[in-house]
């Protein structure tokens, strides 16, 4: 019930690779990391959620504040490789309209 966070550069893109669960306990550390990366001007962050098997509204909250930070400093982030149950939350809340989301894995969305 932890979240493993790893980040590395792939050319101009910063990859933020997450593994585990995003909930009230792990969201604060993710928020700190993501906002830190996004505060760099013109940063392009790819958040890889392939190994995230659980997320709730605390995770949505982190990405909402990511969006606000990114807009302030002209950086951006994309969510990639979402599991079906994680994508579903973006869909239900309508946040898939404002977030950049790519490559949903497992099943036809």
């Amino acid at each position, binding site marked *: *019930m932890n979240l493993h966070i790893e980040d590395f550069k792939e050319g101009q893109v910063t990859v933020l690779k997450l593994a585990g*669960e995003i*909930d*009230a*306990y792990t969201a604060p550390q993710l928020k700190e990391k993501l906002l830190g990366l996004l505060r760099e001007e013109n940063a392009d962050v790819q958040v890889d959620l392939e190994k995230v098997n*659980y997320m*709730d*509204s*605390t995770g*949505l*909250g*982190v990405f*909402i*504040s990511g*969006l*606000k930070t990114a*807009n302030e400093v002209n950086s951006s982030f994309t969510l990639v490789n979402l599991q079906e*149950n994680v994508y579903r*939350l973006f869909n*239900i*809340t*309508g*946040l898939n*309209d*404002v977030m950049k989301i790519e490559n949903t894995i497992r099943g036809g969305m």
Partner: protein
Amino acid sequence: MTKPFDFVEMKLPAKSEYVGVLRLTISGVANRMGFSYEEIEDLKVAVSEAITNAVKHAYFEDDQGEVTIGFALYEDKLEVMVADYGDSFDLEKVKEDIGPYEQGMPIDNLKEGGFGLFLIDALMDKVEINNNHGVIVVMTKYLQENEVGQNDDQISTTQ
């Protein structure tokens, strides 16, 4: 009282570390009842949202209290009660704030913590909130075989 039910109760410290423990428990209970994989995922999110709210109250009030969770296992449905005994919140105000993102809404208006109750309502068949002493959220999910009550999708309040 119509049908008999089994009841499971647990108390957890009002700390975020224990939200995952509750998820393991709800998985076990729901699996035993025969809920599908997708339904179990929905239950995990809904129940986590409820306990996260309770933990947040405790945190803001600097209260190292407990959250009580009750599971009532009926033949055709699961009822989950989450109770914290912190101060009540303004329910009318909370209800005004919930809802999905609508196209064209400025991003600055989105609240980081704004989707918890909305998700509970979206993922469960029935949600009741009792706000008399602390906050008690009662959430119901029906087993798919039994279609009765499937359209009972509402938030009702007892004040």
